[in-house]
């Protein structure tokens, strides 16, 4: 079982992702949420059991690219899988996120199948 952190400034999108994780039959013990990268870092600091992060890119305060950088700069979290879930599927943006340490990405709108494909390698 896994604990997934969803980082997105839209409460609607956090609910949609949570629902799609269930539809995709991803074996999640629990889902925890954060509204931007700053909140995501705080959640990671207070919850050592998080197994995977799904993060938006275009967010206020700390965007997804800076969030990837911040997570990877934290030694204890440098190997934590991070999947970007974004409306912006542009090659340059994605290559930047991947170069900084993201493990993959899913473009919105997504399906249970595309979420499952992106997460399969990382969840037990």
């Amino acid at each position: 079982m896994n604990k997934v952190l969803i980082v997105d400034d839209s409460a609607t999108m956090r609910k949609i992702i949570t629902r799609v994780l269930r539809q995709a039959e991803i074996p999640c013990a629990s889902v925890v949420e954060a509204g931007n990268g700053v909140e995501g870092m705080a959640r990671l600091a207070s919850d050592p059991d998080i197994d995977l992060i799904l993060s938006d890119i275009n967010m206020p305060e700390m965007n997804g690219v800076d969030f990837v950088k911040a997570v990877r700069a934290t030694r204890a979290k440098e190997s934590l899988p991070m999947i970007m879930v974004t409306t912006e599927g542009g090659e340059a943006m994605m290559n930047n996120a991947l170069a900084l340490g993201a493990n993959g990405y899913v473009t919105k709108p997504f399906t249970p199948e595309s979420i499952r494909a992106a997460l399969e390698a990382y969840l037990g």
Partner: protein
Amino acid sequence: MAEPTSQALPGDAELLAALERAVDEVFSSMVFAFEALAEHRSPVATLEKIGVRASFDREAVVEFRGAISGQVVFRCTADGAHDIARGLLMLDDSTALAVEEVNDALKECANMVTGHVKTNVLDPLGKFDLSIPFMKDVGAQVPGPACGALVYRLQQGLVSVELWRRDVPLHS
């Protein structure tokens, strides 16, 4: 400053066609019923002339900035906004939603559609930035020429998805 591009900039018709493809993909994959109206693809001025805009009570906006700048506006009737929120959240008609939930869903929908246009039409032209989606006062004037509007009937309400071109600082 926008980066220079060697590619020809898209005209209004091309941008509107990209917007229509984006709406089709987002609406169909995020599970809500929609139907293009007879006014579909009419210019915004025509919509205002026939009085459609008058019944709209909320607007969600995402701005884009790069070699060309502008905004995508989702203008909804109250029922249309609830249709979108219930569709995205897969809720039935009997589920009550707070205003914040409806507005958040509308903003997210506008964000997905604008992101689709950016990825498929704007990004090949160079660097583009999108604003965080925001709600705007109903009826507030949008400066600059409109490329056009796509009007859809949803389950109970209407939504006009509009593309405007302009050059102003990004909202943040």
